[in-house]
């Protein structure tokens, strides 16, 4: 087995099977927050999401011995969390947000007032164009305070957007890995990512001014 896993993932799987706490800590550090965010997509509260992660973790322990590496470890982990959360969400009889993409269907990526109206010569073009960030002091974008702005913005996103941007941009999943783990269409995955990234950019633009 394991030929489809990266060497790091293969080592993690071996470590988990051997009961090594270092492997446990590595998985939590890397994926813990993401698992919680995925759970929150499908259930009504943070407390229930934490229970889902616990239940899913028992499923992970039960299944790790038979895990054959046909998907990456992280895709497998997140599928278990998503499926556990969906089941729990249905029991709570909470509607699955993806049916309507949550509240993200038709919001604008940028405040419509930033564009010229239909009356003038250039309708839909910038009235207040974005400025280059190239002039910002070196390192400002990656400064602790800036990252806090991003973190807070992500925390406030609707749950599905928050889960997708966490998986894609924080944890480095590919689009296909997210689609597989969360059972999303290509378009839905992209729309959720787009809405989330747009909101984070807006927050940064505000902060960088």
């Amino acid at each position, binding site marked *: 087995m394991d030929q489809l896993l990266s060497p790091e993932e293969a080592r993690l799987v071996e470590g988990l*099977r051997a*009961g090594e*706490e270092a492997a*446990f800590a590595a998985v*939590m*550090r*890397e*994926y*813990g*927050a*993401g698992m*919680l*965010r995925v759970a929150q997509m499908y259930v009504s509260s943070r407390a229930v999401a*934490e229970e889902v*992660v*616990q239940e899913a*973790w*028992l499923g992970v*322990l039960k299944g*790790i*011995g038979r895990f054959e590496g046909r998907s990456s470890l992280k895709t497998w982990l997140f599928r278990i969390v998503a499926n556990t959360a969906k089941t729990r969400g249905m029991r709570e009889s909470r509607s699955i947000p993806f049916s309507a993409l949550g509240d993200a269907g038709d919001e604008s*990526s*940028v405040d*419509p007032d930033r*564009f010229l109206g239909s009356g003038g010569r*250039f*309708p*839909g*073009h*910038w009235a207040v*164009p*974005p*400025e*280059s*960030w*190239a002039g910002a002091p070196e390192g400002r*974008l*990656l400064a602790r305070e*800036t*990252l806090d702005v*991003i*973190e807070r913005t*992500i925390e406030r996103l609707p749950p599905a957007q928050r889960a997708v*941007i*966490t998986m894609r*941009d*924080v*944890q*480095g999943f590919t*689009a296909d890995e997210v689609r597989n783990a969360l059972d999303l269409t*290509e378009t839905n995955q*992209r729309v959720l*990512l*787009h809405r989330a*990234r*747009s909101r*984070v*950019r807006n927050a*940064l*633009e505000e902060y960088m001014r």
Partner: protein
Amino acid sequence: MRLDRELACRDIVELVTAYLEDALDAPDRERFEEHLVFCDGCDNYLEQMRLTIRATGSLNGGSFPAELEEKLLEAFRGWRVG
């Protein structure tokens, strides 16, 4: 994705993720890129989006409640591969 008219800046900001994900048809991709050539605002916008993605990628993954981690660790300790 297929577009049927000239792109305004308002359209560009909605297509930027499709562009970065390589989900635009070749002709649309070309129109998107043509727009950027003459529009500094959109060029800056795309650059801001790339920088946003890079900065987000340097987050440490978010916080995980210590209490929850402790519970998972207990389950892990109590478990042996059957």
